[in-house]
């Protein structure tokens, strides 16, 4: 029997470009408070959020993804035809099949790139970066696009005090490709399915359709247990990602956790004893929690505002429903 020929890719991969799409409509806390009997002050104190963006009907999962990806391609100096794989991380593409990624790959003008969606909730983007890194280094994609995109406003209950003020919309994208030096550190990832119910859609579609009053299966979240898990368990995961990459907190330039809640970011930074020299992402203040999109949106903003410079070391840590999590250190493109 003839042995199969196998291929390998370059030794190292890196982020080569970053792009973002933020919906036009800015929604201040004052638009949210009446339905949840709350106040601007309470929301800010509870989460750090002042405003968020909600997409209109024309800002779809696909259109926001395409816009973010186009900017990432431009930043990387690449043409869409050079992309071999498009990975879209999302939990709010409401068409069950086909994936959003195939439409995105087509609209971008790729040459029939492989394309699929992944479902890892707020941890989806870091899962996608891990996959793309491995694909490039294994030779199965020359260049890959990873897009985190959400329209959480579609699946958020405006009357739920625990979530209505948190979730928001947007898209962020990166291009992953070959590099002379390592640009993406080892991923530390996992799941804790014992707490499958901590963040979830309230019902599955069959339950919705058999109900007397069918309604959107909105997101539901157990706030305090999630806060505890995210603040403390995820600080340990973030530390492991640093250790695996051989980077100390003193060598780190940027800390970009999933923008879940500023209070979680504060608790993580304190638990990790991050020195004041580390720039910490605070995009949530006017972007809300955009799940899979939050890390690339925050990275994009830190680059634009000069807080993250080319060559800086940035620690990404993403965590959410599942519970699922993933973290890695990356070099800022």
């Amino acid at each position, binding site marked *: 029997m003839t042995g199969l020929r196998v291929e390998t890719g370059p030794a190292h991969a890196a982020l080569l470009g970053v792009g973002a799409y933020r919906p036009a409509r800015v929604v201040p806390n004052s638009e949210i408070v009446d339905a949840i009997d709350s106040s601007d002050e309470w929301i800010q104190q509870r989460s750090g959020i002042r405003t968020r963006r909600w997409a209109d009907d024309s800002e779809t999962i696909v259109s926001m993804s395409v816009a973010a990806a186009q900017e990432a391609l431009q930043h990387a100096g690449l043409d869409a035809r050079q992309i071999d794989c498009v990975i879209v991380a999302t939990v709010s593409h409401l068409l069950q099949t086909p994936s959003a990624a195939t439409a995105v790959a087509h609209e971008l003008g790729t040459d029939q790139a492989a394309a699929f969606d992944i479902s890892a909730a707020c941890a989806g983007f870091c899962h996608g970066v891990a996959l793309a890194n491995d694909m490039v280094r294994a030779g199965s994609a020359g260049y890959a696009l990873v897009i985190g995109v959400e329209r959480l406003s579609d699946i958020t209950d405006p009357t739920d005090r625990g979530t209505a003020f948190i979730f928001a919309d947007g898209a962020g994208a990166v291009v992953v490709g070959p590099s002379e030096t390592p640009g993406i550190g080892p991923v530390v990832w996992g799941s804790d399915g014992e707490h499958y119910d901590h963040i979830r859609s309230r019902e599955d579609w069959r339950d919705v359709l058999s109900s007397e009053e069918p309604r959107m299966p909105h997101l539901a979240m157990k706030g305090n247990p999630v806060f*505890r898990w995210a603040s403390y368990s995820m600080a340990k995961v973030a530390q492991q990602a640093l250790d695996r990459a051989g980077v100390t907190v003193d060598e780190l330039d940027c800390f970009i956790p999933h923008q879940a809640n500023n209070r979680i970011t504060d608790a993580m930074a304190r638990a990790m004893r991050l020195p004041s020299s580390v720039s910490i992402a605070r995009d949530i203040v006017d972007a809300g929690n955009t799940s899979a999109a939050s890390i690339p949106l925050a990275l994009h903003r830190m680059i634009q505002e000069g807080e993250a410079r080319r060559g800086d070391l940035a620690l990404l840590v993403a965590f959410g429903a599942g519970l699922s999590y993933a973290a890695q250190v990356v070099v800022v493109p």
Partner: protein
Amino acid sequence: MSTEEIRSALADIVNEVAGIPADSVQLDKSFSDDLDVDSLSMVEVVVEAEEKFGVTIPDEEVKNLKTVGDAVAYIERNRSAA
């Protein structure tokens, strides 16, 4: 550890987490009503207290810890049980 030593160490945690002066963290004070410790800060206080005192404080127990005295008593009880 005496009751006062536990109260004092707990007061330091509340001060670190929520910025409340340690002197005001007295046994008869309610975390939410008197000290303005909200439920997220309470989670942080609980996690730090677990580490400091070597006790486990489950989520369902946290809602019973309304005053500083409740928390100190819980810690005393569960430390001696360990």
